[in-house]
Structure formats: C-alpha cells, structure tokens
C-alpha cells in the first residue's frame, strides 16, 4: 500500500511529462524546414508531388487532428510506419532497443565497476588524509573532460590503423556471434563509459565524504569497528543512495542519448535510428523514438526512486 501511495503521484507526474514530451516533439518536428518529400524526391520536388506525399501520410490534416491520430494510434500500440521503408516503427524500435540496451549496459557496467570502488576508495582516503590532490579528483576531472566524440575519434583511428582485436562498425547480434558482437560493441561502450566513470566516481566520492561527516560513522569508530567493517556495513550502503539517482540518470541518458557514439561507431541502435529519422524527416520514427526514450528515462528514474526508498527507509516514510 505504501509503495502504491509512493508511486501513484509519480506515475501521474510521469504521464504529464510524457504528454509534454509528445507535444514538444510533435510540434518541433512540424516546425522543421524541409520534409520527407524533399528527402525522397531530392531536387526534383514539385508542389504537386509534395501535396501527394503530404496526402499519403496525412500531413495535410490540421495539426490537432494529426496529433490526436498519432496519440490514438500509439495507445493501440501503433507507432506508425517509417516513410522511407514503409515498415512499422515499433518493430524497428524493438529490434534496435536491445542494441542500445547492450551498449548502455556495457557502458554502465564499466562505469560502475571502475567508478564506484574508486569513488569509495578516493572518498575514504580523502577523508583520512585531508588532501585534495588525490587520484579520485584527477581521474574524475579527466574523465569528465574528454567528450565522447573526441575519445571515439581517437579510438577509431587507433584501432583501425593497428587492427587490433576490436572492430569499428559491423554490428552482429550477441545471440548470433557473441565474440563478434563484443568486438564491435566494447569500443563504443568504453567510449560511453568514460564520462560515466567520472560521474559515478565523483558522486561516490562526494557522498562517501558526506556520509563520513555523519555522527553514526564517528559512533562506529568509537565502538572500535575496523575501517573495513565500517566501509562494508555503513558507508557502502549509505553512499549508494545518491549514487542510485545519478546512475539512473546516466543510464537513462545512455538509452536515449548515445546518438554521437552510435553514429561514430555505426552501432545500429535507437539513437542512430532517431538521428537518421530526423535527417530524413521521417516523423513517425523521431516521434516514436523520442517518446520511447522518454518512457524509458522516466521509468528508470522511477525505478531508481523505488530503489532509493528501499535502500533509504526514511524516504518512503517521509511522505
């Protein structure tokens, strides 16, 4: 019951957010100069051809009607068809979602496996030594400073000149060829994870430092607990709370926003699909893709809220 009371307002807020996102993406797409007719016909577009194509896709209707139709169809699970391929957008999105998910999971795993322990270590050390020049700050500052497209470009260069084990592009599904899949997915995953390492490291470090100012840590020290036990029993769990939120945001960002890396490494994920859809003015793709990304982002953040409430018993009760 308490969980429902906790979630219900959030779900309501999420629905409002989704509505806002849908209107925003719908309207901004209609505001874009140029349309699919231009893309399809190239320079040969004539007013007649343009009108014909608009009519074919219902683009000659008033905006409100178009929007209502879109939303209504979507409620029935129909995201529309791509104008380029005439195929249902939802099928393509579902085909690509696992690719993006895998990429995001690789990046997230790398970021967590490196960032969290380093963050804890760096925070504990910083608290003990009162020195600000510790490795955590250096790694954190550097990781947050190399944009993914810089790193990606350099990695592509390095790994294509000296053709090491990794490959750029040529995605194969994990189920078909696990090794081949990893050969193509690890590099973009690594590229994406660098920012995540820095993000998680910095957040963890700050949180650990903050937790270590709390009296219950002093109390544990006063009881004669060993540093290892204090970290294990008290710091890890308490420090995880804000990290959960940051990880959720980061994960949501990975799922919806890894466009550049997908473009750079030719990873056929959702980001690339939306990117190309946008270039082609393939409205249904962009609308569906952005909405899907927003749903995923909001859901993950909501899950993080639940996780937050599970880790921190104070949260659920505060309502």
């Amino acid at each position, binding site marked *: 019951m308490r969980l429902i009371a906790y979630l219900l307002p959030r779900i309501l807020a999420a629905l409002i957010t989704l509505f806002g996102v849908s209107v925003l993406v719908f309207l901004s797409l209609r505001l874009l100069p140029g349309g699919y007719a231009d893309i399809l016909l190239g320079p040969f577009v004539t007013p007649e051809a343009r009108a014909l194509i608009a009519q074919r896709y219902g683009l000659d209707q008033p905006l409100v009607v178009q929007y209502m139709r879109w939303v209504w169809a979507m409620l029935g699970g129909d995201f529309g068809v791509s104008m380029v391929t005439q195929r249902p957008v939802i099928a393509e999105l579902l085909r690509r979602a696992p690719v993006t998910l895998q990429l995001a999971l690789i990046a997230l795993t790398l970021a967590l496996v490196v960032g969290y322990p380093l963050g804890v270590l760096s925070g504990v050390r910083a608290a*003990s030594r009162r020195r600000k020049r510790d490795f955590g700050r250096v790694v954190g*500052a550097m990781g947050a400073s190399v944009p993914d497209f*810089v790193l990606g470009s*350099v990695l592509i260069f390095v790994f294509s000149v000296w053709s090491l084990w990794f490959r750029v592009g040529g995605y194969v599904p994990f189920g078909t060829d696990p090794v081949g899949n990893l050969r193509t997915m690890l590099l973009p995953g690594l590229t994406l994870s660098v920012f995540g390492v820095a993000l998680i490291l910095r957040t963890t470090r700050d949180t650990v430092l903050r937790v270590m*100012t709390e009296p219950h840590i002093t109390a544990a020290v006063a009881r004669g607990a060993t540093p290892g036990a204090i970290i294990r029993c008290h710091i890890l769990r308490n420090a995880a709370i804000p990290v959960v939120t940051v990880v959720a945001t980061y994960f949501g960002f990975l799922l919806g926003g890894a466009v550049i890396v997908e473009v750079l490494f030719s990873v056929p994920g959702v980001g690339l699909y939306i990117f190309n859809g946008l270039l082609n003015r393939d409205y249904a793709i962009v609308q569906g893709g952005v909405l899907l990304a*927003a749903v995923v982002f909001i859901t993950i953040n909501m899950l993080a809220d639940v996780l937050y409430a599970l880790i921190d018993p104070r949260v659920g009760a505060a309502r």
Partner: protein
Amino acid sequence: MSGVRQIARRRLLGDGLTLFGALALGCLLFLGLFGPWLPLGDPLRIAAGPRLGAPSAQFLFGTDELGRDFLPRVVQGIRSTFLLSAIAVAITAVIGTLLGLAAGYLGRHTDQMIARGADILFAFPALVAGLLVAAVMGPGQASAITVISIATLPLFIRVVRSVTLGVAGRGFVTAAEVAGASTLRVMLVHLLPNVMGAVMVQLTYALSIGMIIESALSFLGLGVQPPDASLGSLLRQGSAYLTIAPWMVLTSGAVLSLAIMSVNLVGDAVRDALEPLKGRPLT
C-alpha cells in the same frame, strides 16, 4: 559561507591541481577574449600554407585541408566554444535561478508546473533536443545557446529549488513574512543571496556541460557556421583526416579537453570552498 576573495585565497592557491586548473582557465580565457587581436595569423585565410601541412615553425599546429593555419583556428575555436557556452550558461543561470526560487518558495501548483517543465526538458534526449532545436532554428549561435540552455536549465532549477526549500524554512524568512514582506521581496532579498553559492557551483558544472554540448553540436555540423571554427567543428574537420593529419584532432581535442577540465577543477574548488566536506578518518 565565505566570500569569493576568501575562496580565492584559501582554495585556489592552496592546491596544485586547482592552481593548474585556474591557470589553464585563465590562459584559455585570455585567448578566447583577446585571440582576435593577437598576432597569430588569420584563422580564415585559405591557402596560407600547403594543404594538410604538418606542424612546423611557421605553422605551429600545422595546416588544414584548405591550407589554413590551424593555430589561429584553434584560438578562434576556443573563443566560440568557450564564450558561447559562457553566454548560454549565464542566461540559463538567471532563468533557472528565478524558476527554482519560485518553485521552491511558492510550492504547490507553481512548483508542480515548474517541476513538470523541468522533467520534460530532462526526459527529452539531450542530443535529439539539440538536433531538433538546431534544425528548427537553423544551425548557428542562437540555436547552440538554446540547446545549452535547454540541457542545463533543469540543473539550475533542481539545485536552486532544493536549496530554496532549505532556506525558506529558516528564521529570517519567516520573520520577513511575518513582517509582511511581499513574495517577490522575500525571494529577491532573502532567498536569492542565499542560493547564490549553489548557483555558483552549478554554474561551473553547467559551463563544462555547455562546452561539451556546443562542441558536440559543432561536431555534428550544427554549431558555428563555416568558415568560423569552434573546437567541435575543428574536431569534425580533423577526424576525417586523422590518418594523414592527426595534429588537427590532437590539438583541438587536447585544447577542448583542457578547457573542460580546467572549468571542472575550478568548479570543484569553488564547491569545496563553499561546502567543505570533511569526513572523519576511520581510525
């Protein structure tokens, strides 16, 4: 809370890493502000040297595929990336702070509306938003500023809102309310000065995000317009020639990373000074 001067004295100079960041930031700022008047050469002059010439005494950073001197182009890139982001973030900070104050202090419906608005911006995949805005407004500085604003606005709103919630419960705010101060007065006289610390910290992080976004947009060809350079557009330009002219990516990439890093380091220092975290050692 200590004043800016005290921060400068106590933090910036006290620690080598921060000092490095501050110095780098200072150099970049200098280059960004005064670059056009420095005797570095014309960033736009085509065929000033050979195509794709390697770094030499005459062209320290080499030349690009149209024979332009790359050094002044990088300096111009700093100017675009850095100043553009700074302008965008400054505008966003003002708007975000006001919205955050309103959300945190007025609560209820205002809070709900602002929070939902921020959520919508936040849930929109940042780069897709960037592409859409750049496409709707047309590529160029105005849309880059808008995209940076959209991406960083929620940061300001959230931080200011949560700090405001804390400050609004304090005695002096209640005292002002009881004395009959108007909502606007409470917000501007009592709340605003007290959230400025948090805004300052957020400002530096937003600036580093802003620089990433600006260069990402330029990398996708949606930022500053050719022939003007931004660090992102130079990277895009250079990445096509990575194999035969690696200096293009290496110089612009290094400068971009250095710029973001220096902003981050200075931001860390500001944060440390405003909100020192001193956990206790475990022994």
